[in-house]
């Protein structure tokens, strides 16, 4: 099973929902890896969505696992890409040409949902109107509050900033603008006194 129940936290921490079919003129679905499972479930709930759907899917480490099943859904458009980053121009072009009545569905890792959410809100969709569902890895996209560098796929707390090398504590404090959680130096007062890294939610 690809779902994970995040424990309650501070209000800054995003709370993900469950995708459900909504009335709309068109449907943009963005997923990575196990996020495909949530799209398959969504299609089961209302198959008619797919005739007006544009799916952007980034399989990552799941490889071919879900691709055949997504093709069987016969969405109006199915784009399968190597990474979210490589698809950003395509996503921006899609949003620039989109009209009101577009429904946006985001599913998969927090990093993907956060970044795609940022593009969608920049395009003018209220963030509360965008549906999300977490699936797959609980790895985080972290911003180092000191050097501002982004470290992707953070699985342990604390971790080492991939840009400046500081030892960072993983906070639940989230920035929608950066689409990242905040990492704060863990040994500023006593350099070198770094607690052993623990896997997130282990």
């Amino acid at each position: 099973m690809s779902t994970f129940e995040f424990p309650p936290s501070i209000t800054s921490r995003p709370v993900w929902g469950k995708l459900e079919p909504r009335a709309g003129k068109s449907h943009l679905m963005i997923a990575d890896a196990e996020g495909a499972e949530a799209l398959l479930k969504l299609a089961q709930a209302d198959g008619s969505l797919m005739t007006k759907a544009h799916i952007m899917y980034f399989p990552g480490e799941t490889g071919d696992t879900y691709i055949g099943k997504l093709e069987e859904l016969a969405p109006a458009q199915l784009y399968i890409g190597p990474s979210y980053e490589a698809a950003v121009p395509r996503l921006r072009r899609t949003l620039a040409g989109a009209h009101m009545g577009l429904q946006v569905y985001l599913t998969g890792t927090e990093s993907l949902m956060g970044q795609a959410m940022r593009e969608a809100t920049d395009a003018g969709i209220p963030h509360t109107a965008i549906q999300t569902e977490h699936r797959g890895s609980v790895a985080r996209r972290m911003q180092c509050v000191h050097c501002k560098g982004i470290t992707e796929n953070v699985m342990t707390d604390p971790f080492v900033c991939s840009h400046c090398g500081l030892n960072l504590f993983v906070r639940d404090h989230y920035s929608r603008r950066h689409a990242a959680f905040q990492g704060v130096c863990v040994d500023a007062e006593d350099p070198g006194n770094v607690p052993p890294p623990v896997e997130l939610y282990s």
Partner: protein
Amino acid sequence: MSAGTNKIDVTVTDIVPLNDLVTRFKFERSDGELLPTFSGGAHTVVEMKDGEVSRLNPYSLMSDPNDRTAYTISVRRDEEGRGGSLFMHRNVKVGDRMTISYPVNLFALDLRAKKHLMIAGGIGITPFLSQIRQLDYANGHFELHYACRNRALGSYVDYLTSAHPNDVHIYFDEMKQAIDLENLLDGQPLGTHIYVCGPAGMINWVRDTAEKLGWPREAVHFEEFLAPQSGKPFQVELAASNKTIEVGEHQSLLEAIEAAGVDAPYLCRGGACGQCETNVVDYDGEILHRDHWLEDDEKQSGKKIMPCVSRFEGKILVLDR
């Protein structure tokens, strides 16, 4: 007390009849100072001293939000109403001193919007006049669709069409012109917000159509001030202040509470803002909910009432006030 109950003493400095139904009033501060700034879509509550009766009616501010020397409002005469608009039309003269509230905005522009799509019906045009002026300063992107009965009764039609010929679209009911709403909403660019002000039927039509087409609720804004309706007189016990009061036929419950000297919160006095929400301690009868604020289940629960517009018929009503 609440924010909207901060008062300003003003003098009526201009009265301009626009057509058979609508008259414009201009207020300036009696002490010669400047008025507070406001944002497009804001309203003020005008106090009217009509002999023994005191009325407080909300009116949208329609002047330039950056002009602090004066506020203007437009009042549509309502022959069937409880007399507030008739009082404004018949009794108020240039030079009169009046009291108005600080501006309150329950119908503000969402400045995150990429485009503002405004839909007005009849006198519902007033908040858009100040919103459009506000957008003028910021070079904001808007489109106004304004439906009214005919040219003679179309307040500000000429001004709007000459000031904004490409952005204003007028529909005259008597010429069988109607807003083609589905077509209008279909194809609006992403980031468009809808603002609708007019009769209840129009507001519901726009909200329902937008929902059906997949518009987010957050992108659909509406304002309808309800005038308190007259009804059978009734008695109310105010538990917290230990008083029993009578609500007259043409008086609202909120006005009766105020007349008894009990301080009750309010902002819009039109069933929209939620400020006057009051707990019902006990009742035996029927609460006549007339507001836009309470959810249906709250109305059915019999535990809440909005005294600005709602009434009661029955034996006992006890409020926590």
